């Protein structure tokens, strides 16, 4: 059930309407039922996998707390935590990475001229498994660390894992952020309703008008065997906006739906293409994943505490695994490595860059800001080329074509990209300089707000392309 589908247009008002009629316990039960139905609508066979995660992590966390209370040795608590980690990672590894590793192993053997009768399995990838597994793991780790009491009621915990707005594509909510909201009564405020409506409309507009219209164009360019430099350039720009609008659009709708029910989900995207450095990019792009990786991987590895060399190693490990989280393919690993290298280089050069860009006059600061944003945007775009390419050969071909970026200029194609992405860029410039991410919800007078929503509605209903599945569902 896609957020941009007729089914969801029926599901959402029914679920929200009944939700408003119930008290907190009833609301939680109703939301749990709705969430399981939402998840089963993709494929009911995914439910047992989701249920396994819920059961294992609920009982492991409860036992961890019990052990802490009786003063059990740290080692024993670590073993118990390992059960949760092992179960979650085993399921993730099997469903998502089994075939990838088998394929890679087979290819390595073949490269060594060793023939082995290895075959892959026909495994169905449970939708959203990477998101809810990470979320559920964060709960047991937080209980282990003593940052959070274990949840007393299984159904509340089950709702935490399966809460439908963010179940299949995030944001990845830490238990400390979401569980308290589930456990206490919620009151939807007027501002939450206004913000929620804006987030839903804006998110759907980004997805249906921009991402879905750019998708065929991107697919066409990335299926060309020998694209010109100009086509590659446009294809990468178009993909940059497609993936951003697709993913952030989903998140916006998820946050909007949650707000309408009185929940607050974390901000997942904060104008990422306005970043001036790789470090800033990861505080603006998929914030919930980068926070998770920082809290549960980078910091436990040592973070930046043990000197430059270990910091660089930790950054590389974190980003490589972050890349692999996105999908079972080598180009995602390559993309992760590229992001790691950018972070390492930036970290190494930061003192020098700070000196270079230390300007006094306002215009020089503005020019330097623009320059750094543009450079970072293009570095990000090159990352998207690695991310979107289907083979190493394609990466090489498209990268080589970029040496002549203005070869065979295709004005029609350029106008299409500008036509779909341009309005977003204009709005986001305003958001960036005004510092207001929510910009429609409080627009005055009301008639002006209605007119703005109507324009978005027109573009969504009558100028949307054929609906495409959200890109991040595959992760």
């Amino acid at each position, binding site marked *: 059930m896609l957020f941009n589908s*007729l089914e969801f247009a029926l599901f959402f008002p029914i679920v929200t309407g009944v939700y408003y009629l119930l008290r907190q316990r009833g609301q939680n039960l109703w939301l749990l039922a709705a969430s399981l139905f939402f998840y089963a609508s993709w494929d009911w066979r995914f439910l047992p996998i989701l249920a396994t995660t819920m059961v294992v992590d609920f009982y492991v966390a409860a036992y961890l707390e019990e052990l802490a209370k009786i003063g059990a040795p740290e080692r024993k608590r670590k073993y118990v935590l390992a059960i949760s980690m092992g179960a979650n990672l085993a399921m993730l590894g099997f469903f998502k990475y089994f075939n990838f590793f088998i394929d890679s192993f087979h290819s390595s053997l073949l490269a060594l001229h060793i023939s082995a009768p290895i075959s892959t399995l026909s495994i169905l990838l449970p939708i959203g498994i990477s998101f809810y597994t990470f979320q559920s793991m964060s709960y047991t780790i937080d209980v282990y660390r003593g940052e959070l009491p274990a949840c007393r009621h299984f159904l509340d915990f089950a709702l935490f894992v399966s809460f439908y707005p963010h179940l299949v594509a995030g944001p990845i909510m830490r238990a400390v952020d979401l569980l308290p909201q589930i456990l206490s009564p919620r009151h939807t405020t007027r501002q939450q309703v206004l913000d929620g409506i804006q987030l839903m409309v804006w998110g759907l507009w980004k997805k249906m008008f921009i991402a879905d219209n750019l998708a065929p164009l991107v697919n066409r360019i990335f299926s060309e065997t020998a694209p010109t430099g100009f086509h590659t350039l446009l294809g990468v720009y178009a993909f940059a906006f497609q993936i951003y609008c697709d993913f952030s659009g989903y998140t916006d709708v998820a946050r909007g739906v949650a707000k309408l029910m009185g929940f607050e989900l974390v901000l997942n995207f904060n104008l990422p293409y306005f970043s001036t450095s790789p470090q800033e990019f990861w505080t603006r792009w998929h914030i919930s994943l980068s926070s998770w990786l920082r809290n549960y991987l980078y910091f436990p590895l040592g973070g930046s505490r043990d000197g430059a060399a270990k910091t660089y190693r930790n950054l590389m490990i974190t980003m490589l695994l972050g890349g692999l989280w996105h999908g079972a393919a080598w180009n995602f690993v390559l993309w992760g490595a590229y992001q790691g290298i950018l972070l390492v280089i930036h970290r190494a050069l930061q003192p020098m860059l700070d000196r270079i860009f230390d300007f006094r006059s306002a215009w020089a600061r503005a020019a330097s800001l623009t320059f750094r944003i543009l450079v970072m945007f293009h570095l990000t775009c090159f990352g998207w080329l690695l991310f979107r390419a289907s083979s190493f050969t394609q990466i090489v071909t498209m990268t080589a074509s970029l040496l002549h970026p203005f070869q065979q200029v295709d004005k029609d194609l350029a106008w299409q990209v500008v036509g779909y992405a341009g309005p977003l860029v204009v709005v986001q410039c305003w958001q960036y300089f005004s510092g207001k991410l929510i910009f429609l919800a409080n627009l005055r007078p*009301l*008639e002006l707000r*209605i*007119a703005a*929503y*109507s*324009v978005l*509605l*027109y*573009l969504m*209903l*009558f*100028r949307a392309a054929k609906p495409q599945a959200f890109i991040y569902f595959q992760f």
Partner: protein
Amino acid sequence: MRLSFRGLVRIITCLIVSVLTLELCARIDDWIGYGAPIFSLSYNENRLYEYDQIGKRSRPNVRYRKWQLNSVGSRGPELTDGGTRILCLGASETFGLYEPEGQEYPRQLERQLNARIPGGDFQVLNFALPGMPLPVITTRIPAMAAAVHPRFALIYAGVATYIWLPDRKPLSSPPRDHFEWRLAEPVRNLAKQLIPASLQDKFRERSIQQSLASLGTPAFDRLPQENLDYYRSDLEDLIATLRRYDIEPILVTHATRFPPEPTPADRPMLLAWRRFGPLLREDGFLPMERSGNDILRQLAAADGLFLIDAASRIPTGDRYFADFVHFTEEGSRQMADVLADALVPRLAADQSR
């Protein structure tokens, strides 16, 4: 919760603002896409027509959405000097409703003929208009002949216009221009996508019943012989007129999306077709088509005319037909292939003479 008068006014104002904004968006959208005037009362296919004492004819140098007419009023690019000109006569199937611009079958045929006949210089002129009855086409032939001096005329005209005989008479006065919501068409198209097919069938059935009630005539199972006779005589008139102006008529049998024996899955589309001829029951449409094509074959045999049997050569199904008789882009390509296969030897021989 009681709604105050002020609150009610606010809600109504917001609704009005929303509808007006959506309408303005639709108009700007038309302007960006097709250069349509933003503030005109209406923007519909009537822009393509003008009327004289005979009836409807194409308006030169006009554009409506993707349909662009040239200076002689045919759909397609401007004519160039010289070459062999071939008229395509018919109605909406020939004019092209669903194909992208430049992909309707006359355009594709022109490209094929010029590619397949060495030294060929053929211009295929799409003089069809949606809903154009044969008698009107016949009366327009002298003007067409004087304007473009064609050598051949392909006649691709179905018999469906003859279900209700007054349809074959020309409409001599233009419909009155009145305000039309530009938003209506996108909303209608969206509704077609969203409303379940079974419900759409119910709407169609109701519309057919309403049409029958307003006509005050009972529906018939088969097209009456009288109607088929009119079709035959109108075709004979057209052929005679073309010959009078030294234009060689070429008859083309009429193709539909349906197999010879329609299945239950074909019923919704037959129902959709019947909306344009409610007097004939769905089961009568395919026999009507067969009778119409038999008349074309008989005329060709009797007069020694060149006949291209498109009906038996174009595959059926939704890959080739966007609705009951109108081509998809691929259907138009298929039609152009069929026509070109038949015409190439004939035109090559003509050229060598």
